């Protein structure tokens, strides 16, 4: 890169800096993202604006390129890791300033399944889109999900399964929610390599999400719909 000039983040104006942060997120440069967030804070940007305009904006590009088969899991993980660095700085400030909440999700891989790559991707991309995510990890029996949604009061319950032997367990969880009369209190999203849309419908989920980028778009759509319904009374 000898023929390229070194870019000094603090010398860029706001607009250029945000563009550069998009690129740095894309390249998974954590330290640069942290530096960018701190510079914007020094310039008196509101934490919520930094989140939505710089970080979420950048992750949206990453999400689109992941969806379109331009980026793959390793690159997305690095981008999400850079995003996380920026979020760590912003999180306490967002709480202090009473920034609006995009939505909250409880997510976990179902009982018997230890795969967490897909679930982690969804968690990261959801956080990248500004959602609060409570990650239950792997191998969750139905009790874990029920306890978590009662405690956390999320908008969305997300379940992941990567094995044909574990995917039916999602129905066990949904059926239990139906029995307890709480199914319709939550948006239920499911995902995992062996699943498809028809399976999602058959087990009573609100939607099947093909990948993490689709999960984010679906989550936004359902949360907006839910808010509209509430507003309509």
């Amino acid at each position: 890169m000898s023929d390229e000039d070194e870019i000094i983040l603090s010398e860029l104006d706001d607009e250029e800096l945000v563009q550069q942060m998009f690129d740095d997120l894309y390249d998974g440069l954590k330290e640069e993202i942290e530096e960018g967030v701190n510079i914007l804070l020094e310039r008196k940007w509101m934490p919520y604006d930094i989140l939505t305009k710089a970080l979420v904006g950048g992750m949206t590009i990453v999400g689109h390129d992941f969806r379109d088969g331009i980026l793959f899991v390793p690159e997305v993980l690095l981008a999400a890791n850079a995003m996380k660095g920026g979020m760590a700085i912003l999180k306490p400030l967002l709480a202090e300033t009473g920034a609006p909440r995009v939505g909250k999700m409880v997510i976990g891989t179902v009982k018997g399944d230890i795969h967490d790559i897909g679930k982690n991707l969804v968690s990261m991309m959801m956080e990248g889109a500004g959602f609060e995510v409570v990650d239950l990890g792997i191998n969750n029996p139905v009790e874990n999900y029920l306890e978590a949604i009662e405690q956390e009061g999320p908008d969305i319950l997300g379940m992941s399964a990567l094995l044909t032997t574990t995917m039916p367990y999602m129905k066990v969880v949904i059926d239990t929610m139906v029995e307890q009369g709480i199914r319709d209190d939550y948006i239920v999203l499911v995902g995992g390599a062996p699943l498809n849309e028809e399976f999602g419908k058959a087990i009573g989920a609100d939607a099947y999400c093909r990948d993490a980028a689709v999960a984010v778009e679906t989550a936004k759509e359902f949360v907006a719909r839910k808010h509209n319904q509430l507003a309509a009374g």
Partner: protein
Amino acid sequence: MSDALTTLLAEKGTLLADGATGTNLFAMGLMSGDAPELWNEEEPQKINALYKGAVDAGSDIFLTNSFGANASRLKLHDAGHRAFELSRMAAEIGRDVADAAGRKVIVAGSVGPTGDIMEPVGNLTHADAVDMFHETAAGLKAGGADIGWLETISAPEEYTAAAEGFARAELPWVGTMSFDTAGRTMMGVTSTDMATLVAGLDFPPIAFGANCGTGASDLLRTVLGFAATGTTLPLVAKGNAGIPKYHDGHIHYDGTPELMGDYAAMARDCGATIIGGCCGTTPAHLEKMREALDTRPVQPAPSLEAIVAALGAFSSTGDGTGDDGNRPARKRRGRRAA
């Protein structure tokens, strides 16, 4: 001395591998969430029946019930320390079935992914991954497996680590990856990338190829991609029997035995010489595949259009090889010096 698989392949030209393990065990009453590998100890007669189903349907090779028999996966079932013995048991049952078959049948010790992401993106180190793969491979060998069979791998780092594990166990092996994301693996590996990866290994597999993934059409496109590299290694095609559907509390794959027969013949036309099924493939499917391979003449490799016409549409327009191999790149601003 040549390994058993190479010998049999030279003898027969094309070999029929087996079908599903997980979905077939499910049909035998395995509960959602339980580790199939524990059945090697608790329900050996069912594992015996699983293997025998493939052999009786005409398979030349079957995979052992040890896909998740590595320390990382078994940890979940509080059996992380039992990878060696559960792998050994899986192979022992297989050895008995193969020896009673009355013809030469290869016991291939299944080795699945660790489920962890490797460094630098994830936390699993190369050394730990090699240790885990070695433990499973050594158990399979001790139980009498003819070869090791790595499957459903996404990351090149993990494939490389497994190769080292097999090398340390001195077990000849076959290794397939799962191309389920727009014609690539989840980690972005194309068919061409995999051929390059395999060619660069110190302890290369006897054969390589693709398993599982999204559907039979995608899988054959991947096989065509391998063949186009001019590789001299035998190619493996192990595709799912259609797409999973949910029916009365269990998973059912929608690919019919007849369709899998067509798939088997086309897989051979595409250049594969070791052909089997994956999820959803039952002995009834295997019988039709056997029949197709035994009775249908070899044809020239089908066009992509012919594959779609016979087996259904692709899940994505391209697969990252050939003319669409250049990833559309984002226009970048200046990159900073390190």
